[in-house]
């Protein structure tokens, strides 16, 4: 077969020798329900080749390219409307920035102004973003968890992986360090760069390394489907409730029970630290869950 670029593959995905109709796992239940029905006797899946579809296929790459160009044009127009990078009279450089930089640490208690902006000043936007992420994760799980047969890793590959001394010993040394660094980034989110999302991603990659080196079975003692769901629901519920509380207090001008504390202390910045922990746990579990779903079809 001639070597192809990604664009070639995308353009000719329907003509390649790899026929998806053979590889779909949908055929399993059909065979199980009607065991005496021979596979050849099944009606052949008609290849959609009438005129409209063929025109659609021929036009598809051009229309896709045109759409991409139009979108790029719109985005570039929007960029042209923005003030020049670093210009002094930009809107981001006037009172908004002065407020955030000047009084951010005092008002939110977070030394890391980014954490203060994300989880305090602009927490409403962050809550909306996390809903978008939650919907996306739910869609991925709905799509990938419906596989009728659970795909176990082939025994051979698992044995090779578990017997590989380089992988196992490297993982033994590296996993604690990665996890420790991840938790440090989560807990230190209001004091330095990092925060819940970045730290959670680091923790998740540590868990993934652990799963690759030692197998899913050992990791299941720590994190199985049940505890996965519990952690996710508890953290998301805590996040929403805590944010609802602070929105309620902020909108009505009430004092919250979470004080800003002394900036620079680990137990300061009010709600930012617990929110970072919740976000970190959710992100770490979700990253590991995505890996497990991709790798073996279940968590």
């Amino acid at each position, binding site marked *: 077969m001639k070597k192809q*670029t990604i664009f070639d593959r995308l353009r000719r995905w329907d003509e390649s020798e*790899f*026929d998806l109709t053979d590889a779909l796992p949908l055929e399993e239940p059909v065979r199980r329900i009607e065991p005496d029905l021979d596979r050849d006797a099944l009606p052949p899946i008609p290849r959609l080749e009438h005129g409209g579809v063929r025109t659609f296929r021929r036009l598809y790459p051009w229309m896709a390219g045109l759409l991409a160009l139009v979108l790029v044009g719109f985005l570039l127009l929007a960029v042209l409307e923005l003030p020049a990078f670093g210009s002094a009279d930009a809107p981001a450089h006037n009172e908004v920035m002065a407020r955030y930089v000047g009084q951010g640490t005092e008002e939110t208690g977070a030394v890391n102004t*980014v954490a203060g902006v994300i989880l305090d000043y602009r927490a409403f936007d962050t809550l909306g973003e996390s809903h978008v992420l939650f919907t996306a994760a739910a869609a991925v799980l709905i799509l990938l968890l419906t596989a009728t047969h659970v795909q176990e890793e082939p025994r051979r590959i698992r044995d090779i992986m578990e017997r590989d001394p380089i992988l196992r010993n490297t993982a033994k040394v590296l996993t604690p360090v990665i996890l420790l660094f991840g938790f440090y980034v989560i807990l230190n989110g209001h004091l330095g760069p990092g925060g819940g999302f*970045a730290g959670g*991603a*680091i923790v998740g990659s540590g868990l*993934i390394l652990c799963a690759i080196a030692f197998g899913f079975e050992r990791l299941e003692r720590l994190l199985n489907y049940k505890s996965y769901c519990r952690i996710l629901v508890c953290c998301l519920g805590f996040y929403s409730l805590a944010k609802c509380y602070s929105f309620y207090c902020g909108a009505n001008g009430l004092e919250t029970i979470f004080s800003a504390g002394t900036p620079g202390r680990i137990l300061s910045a009010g709600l930012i630290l617990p929110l970072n922990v919740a976000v970190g746990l959710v992100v770490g579990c979700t990253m590991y869950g995505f890996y497990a779903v991709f790798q073996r079809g279940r968590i």
Partner: protein
Amino acid sequence: MTGMELFQLMLLGLLVVCGISACLTKNLLVSLIIFMAYSVIMSVVWVLLQAPDLAITEAAVGAGISSILLFITLKKLRDMRREVRDEETDDL
């Protein structure tokens, strides 16, 4: 032009080279590795733009998790293709 500016220009040029070559390579595995390199360069660029938060996230997500997921997807595709090929040889 100071050395720092030269370094930044080099990084930006490498970004463009990585972005284009990731699309144009014939081998999907090579394309993925170039994509990882793109993320690593991008995280250095974030540090130079004084956004360390973004740099950490880019390194963890762009170079780590999303590359792992893409590698698994590539492996699955190869497995599926091999199964199909085995079935075809069985039929013959």
